[in-house]
């Protein structure tokens, strides 16, 4: 608190300060959204304003009128969806084992996982490309999904591990006393409790699968397989300064992310901090 004596003054001042800072920091997002609703005459002007004088949906309609945009949307959803499913399945299995079962060389495995998480993607693109080429997965959406697992899995396992570890063991013991086998305890007790963490990992994987660029750009070569990220870049080249259209494409691209994000933001915070402070 800045002023201890007058709480109202303090709160008002803080709110003004934080709002101003947020406005400046979020300016790009705000600009993007407003621009997409402006008619082109207000977009391409030497005296830009923030809020549109005339709100219009003309750019959104134009986007769907282009043949390719719906395809890009579909491909993006496809890749994001399968990345999410694969990550949740594999990461949960691994995290369950690491936290509750006897795994040989556990500590080494964990260090290895953390190590791979820190690794930049650019380093593996050449060999990864060659591998996918041999497996005939170039220009294949599943090839892209596979390549995304290398970063969603480490993060997912780490986050789930942090979350699972914070569940008191009494719950498990109570279930065992009641006569559940290992697997039914898993089903009836653990899964419902861990659903928020799974949702968080799933969301993170979805966001990554949806918005990633490099791997997709290298693996996908044909226009019909382009994901929405590549599609946006293609549109940027084609519709050069039609920023009304381009920002409309951005807004559509951000919508699923923001929706998911608002929901899981709380869990991301606790998952992230559990991971880093315990490392």
């Amino acid at each position, binding site marked *: 608190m800045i002023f201890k004596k007058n709480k109202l003054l303090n709160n008002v001042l803080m709110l003004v300060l934080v709002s101003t800072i947020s406005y400046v920091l979020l300016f790009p997002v705000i600009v993007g959204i407003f621009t997409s609703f402006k008619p082109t005459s207000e977009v391409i*002007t030497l005296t830009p304003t923030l809020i549109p004088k005339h709100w219009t949906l003309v750019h959104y309609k134009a986007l769907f009128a282009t043949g390719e945009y719906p395809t890009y949307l579909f491909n993006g959803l496809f890749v994001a969806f399968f990345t999410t499913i694969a990550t949740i399945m594999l990461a949960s299995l691994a995290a369950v084992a690491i936290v509750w079962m006897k795994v040989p060389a556990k500590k080494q495995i964990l260090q290895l996982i953390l190590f791979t998480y820190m690794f930049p993607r650019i*380093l593996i693109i050449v060999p990864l490309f060659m591998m996918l080429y041999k497996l005939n997965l170039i220009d294949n959406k599943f090839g892209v999904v596979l390549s995304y697992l290398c970063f969603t899995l480490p993060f997912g396992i780490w986050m789930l591990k942090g979350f699972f570890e914070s569940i008191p063991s009494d719950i498990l013991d109570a279930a065992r006393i009641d006569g559940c086998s290992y697997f039914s305890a898993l089903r009836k007790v653990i899964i419902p409790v861990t659903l928020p963490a799974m949702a968080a990992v799933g969301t993170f994987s979805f966001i990554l699968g949806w918005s990633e660029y490099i791997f997709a750009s290298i693996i996908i070569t044909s226009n019909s397989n382009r994901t929405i990220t590549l599609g946006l870049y293609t549109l940027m080249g084609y519709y050069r300064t039609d920023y009304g259209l381009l920002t409309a494409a951005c807004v559509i691209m951000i919508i699923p992310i923001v929706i998911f994000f608002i929901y899981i933001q709380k869990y991301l915070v606790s998952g992230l901090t559990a991971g880093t402070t315990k490392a």
Partner: protein
Amino acid sequence: MKRKELISLIFVIPALAAIFALTLYPILRGIDISLTDKLLSYDKYSYIGLENYINILKDDMFWLALQHTAVITIISSIIILILSLALALLLNMKFPLRKFFRGILMIPWVVPSVVSVLIFRWIYNDYYGYINYILVKYHILDQAVNILADEKLAWLGVIIPIVWKEYPFAMLTFLASLQSIDKNLYEAAKIDGASKLQVFKEITLPLLKPAFVILGILEIIWMFSSFDTIFLLTRGGPDNSTITLSIYTYMQAFESTEFGYGSALATIMFLILFAVSIVYFIFVNRESWSKKTS
């Protein structure tokens, strides 16, 4: 092997196999290819030993890219750390709607790089962009400047979106660290009559040191290999003024199709980052070891 261990292995193996196949194996294979003259298109290639590495040392563009990478890494990391610490300190104070603001300030982290690049390009635009409009209107500049086409300014134009996207993670980490500081310490300081500045200097900062170091190392690793934003924004910059190691590696491997040379560049990057991450592991293990013995 006992049955329990076997079951646990079955659980762990799918994920581990994927991670191993998609990360560790490619790194090793990449090192292997760096010793060859492989091109993207031809299947036949031969081993040429350390020739790629020798050529890299003679390559002016490599040294230029390395220099740019170092500058961008250090400057971005410093700005990110300072900005995120300031924001974390702010969000650590009590005021209404605190959690709402924490949430929205995290948005840049989840905005895809393509989107942020597109919007920043628009804001930077010399005819219609907001930045030039404001700078000229308030007479800070005489004339609009095309930031991304200017050799001397392009690096600044590149650092801003990078910092914008990365600060939320650091901010969160600092915030978590701040909130784990024992409140009793602040109480004791207040009783002893310490001023706010003293409290900050003697209590808060020292306790933040671990977070600072860990974040610093992580940011260095991530900024060093930053690719998306720079590539999409300037593709190496007007006249190679923003080319970094990761972009140069990409260009060699996929535009010049020199897989062997590109892999050698990637391996050098890997070695540099490996050295930095070892520092990270040493620091983290030293911290937890000292906590156990104290």
